[in-house]
């Protein structure tokens, strides 16, 4: 879900996504960079992501991933599930 969320803002390449996750989560989430790629490929095989090669900010060609329609739907779905879960947890904690 994190990957989908990050990509929903703008297309990015693998390295970029890794940096981004660390940045956004203020270093709290340490993404194992090695396990990022299998995840990306799985999402691509599920047709939630599409990929294209284009020049990156350093000028070298990089594989940029972006969200597909199906990916957007999936993100919405997962966000909803997540919201429901967190709301539920919140409710339990706020009871006292």
């Amino acid at each position, binding site marked *: 879900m994190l990957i989908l969320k990050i990509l929903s803002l703008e297309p990015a*390449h*693998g*390295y970029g996504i890794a940096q981004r996750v660390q940045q956004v989560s203020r270093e709290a989430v340490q993404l*194992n*960079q090695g396990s990022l790629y299998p995840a990306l490929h799985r999402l691509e*095989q599920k047709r939630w992501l599409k990929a294209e090669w284009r020049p990156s900010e350093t000028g070298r*060609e990089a*594989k940029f991933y972006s969200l597909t329609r199906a990916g957007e739907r999936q993100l919405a779905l997962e966000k909803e599930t997540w919201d429901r879960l967190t709301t539920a947890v919140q409710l339990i904690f706020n009871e006292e």
Partner: protein
Amino acid sequence: MWKLLNLLPGRRRRMEKELERELRYHVDRRFDDLVRSGLSDAGARRQVALEFGGVLQVQEEVRDAWVWRWLSNGQRDLQYAGRLLRRSPVFAATALLSIALGIGASTAVFSLIDQVLLRRLPVSEPDRLVYFNWRGGTLSTGWGYDYLNSYPLCRELQEQRQVFDGVVCRHPTTVSLSIGQQPQEVRAEIVSGTYFNVLGVQPRLGRLIDPSDDVNPGGHPVVVVGENYWRNYLASDPNVIGRKVSVSGYPMTVIGVAPATFVGMDPLAAASLWMPATMAAQAGNIDAYWDQLLNRRAAWLHVFGRLKPGLTGEAAKKTLEPWFRTMLENEPSTAGFPNVSEEQRQRFFSSTFDLQAVPGGLSASRRAFQRPLWMIMAGSVILLLLASLNVAGLLLARGAARAREFTTRMAIGASRGRIAGQLLVESMLIALGGGLLGLLAAPALARVIVFFLPRDGDVALHIDGRVLAFAFLASVITAVMCGIAPALQTGRTPLVASLNDRSRVAAGGGVWLRKILVAGQLAFTLVLLIGSGLFVQTLTHLHDNLGFDSSNLVTVSVDPPANGYSEADAERVMREVLQRLQAVPVVERAAAANSGMLNGGAASTMVTIDSGRRFASDRAAARMRVGPGFFPTLGTQVIAGRDFDERDVRPPGDKPRAYRTVIVSESFVRRYFQDQNPIGARIGLGNRPDTKTTIEIIGVVKDFSRRTLRDEQVETIFLQYFDNQSGDGTFYVRIRGRAETAVSQIRSAVAQVDPELPVTLTIFDDQVERSLRTERMLASMSSAFGTLALLLAVIGLYGVMAFVVTQRTQEIALRMALGATRPAALWLIMRDAAVMIAGGTLIALPAVWALRRFVEADLFGVSSLHLPTIVVAGSVLALVGFSAALLPAWRAATVNPTDALRL
């Protein structure tokens, strides 16, 4: 599913390249960033590796995301298995060929069984078709086979609209058809006017026979021809409608062409011509001078009804019951009802009927084909099983040899399932390959099988979805059967032990499994050997059962009435043909008779015998009409009294008369005269109280086979051919020299009388062979399979023994060093072989006992548990088995202890 696309090699290569580029980019960027943030080159490289992990692992995990792991494993296993098979071509060829033969044969038989027994008629809603069977004393004279009914009854049933949407009647026949060329024998159906309409068959051209053609007897000279006949013999002539044709010498007109998909109610005897029932007397060729269309006691039609939708056969029967009862009660007051005894009358009134569902139509050949086909099916399944056992044995042997490979692989982390999977992939490759080869061979095998069927039939291999599915399923089952034992066997032994112990090769468990497989093979082999022994004896017994010499004998059948001759002219033709035949130089003798022999059928009749006291026969005697010289021509002996001679022949030109003289068979005398002299006694045809006994017995003849070679010698009476109507029949001709050489001379002799007259000429030996086809097939198939099985089993046995010997060489050497004698060592090894052979026999004997019912009907003159056969087969197996075992055993016994123990 589109993940499968990722297996395509081109696509796969591109994906691999992109993945590498992608990962390289990541690593390089990270490295650059780290260097920029102040790390040294070496430090940065270490940091990247720490963060990222192994590039290879990542690649591997990404690949898992591309395709399912088992699938890519399977792909690799397949490549590996292919390489292995290429490396041992002999093993691969044996395995592939035996499986191909098994699958090919069973697929071919399946296709034939599908057609003969399972396929439905290509008409609309065949499931609603029922066949009307009148059971009990119909008091009718029948023309044809199975349940026959009269034309008036057929018309009455058509009125039973509360149960039927329609009723069709048909009579299968063979007519001589000529459309402006030589007359040709074709199969035809004589049908009711409702026929095509009720079956829902649409014309290919013109119109089909309809109820308007079924009104006035003799008034509708129209025919429909089949599309195949139209294509093959009429050059697909679009103007065929309206063409004049001659059917059995009667002029008729073509009104339409039936579609190729429809070949009549008998799918195994395709009809090429249809004519309305109203023309049966004129063109039907049912019997000479047959005119029984309106006779209620003439049974010649098969009657089928199409049930109303939703109506069951049972319900329909209940609804029809009152009609049937009324019909029975009214029948005695109809014209032509015979004067019968009270008992026969009672049997008539207590007759019943039923409605039998016939979605597949009605076929005379179906029953005849059923048994042989199932026998071949059983044979090919056994062959397939044997081949599987063999392949399983070979895979096990290879498994043992590869045990080190497998244990090594397991030691570095392969799972047991992974290796078992690999073995299954190997057997799958063999089985599917074999299945594919088998499918290619199936058409040829099907032709061989069809040739062996006991009579002609329109069956051939049709490869369709069902047949393909069958072949595929058979292959997969075979693969599992071959692969399961070796697969289960892998990884049974503890890793460390097998890696350390180099002499035992970690296959101790594999050997007993292989021994069981070999015992199973030996059991199958024994069953097949016993079977082939029985079938070969059956064949010999049947040959001997003929009762006369069949070589140099030719039969010549002609049917002048079917070709437009009047009764008196036909008779003149017959006598002339006989004279011409007798005048042919190579002809030794020739005689007339009313029918051919060994074609499965025979007329029979009850008789009344008057030999001082008058009594009726307790069962029907077979009857045949033969002319003077018939018995000498056949080579059978008249053992008492005299043969027919010119005195018995009705002078030419006289009207047919009642029979005066008869010759009876030996068995007839045995049954009805015991020790009395039958010569001079009188008999009458029929068993009514008023039957006249006016026919004098003038001779007794030895028994011989007439209907089939399997005849129990039934009582037979031979009437004088020339007493009654003698306008058609069969001449028996004994040739000097080889029968084949006389064929053209015989044909020209007949042609001198009438060049237009069709002649059916049969070389009697061919006829004998033909009637023995199924038996010959069983004998040769079981012999061939038996030999093949013996070979496979011996190879298996030898393999196991050789393996055991190499395993136990050290042990034997040790024993011999400690004083064991050579015979003792030999016995040590041979004991294993003895156990396997004994085990196989122990499995086989109950199997033979269980299978005896299955083969009994196909045996003749030998019991299914014929002890000498079993003993001989067992001895052959034991002898061959021990010889195969002796070689390795001898090697073991002659081993030099010092050589073997030095290791």
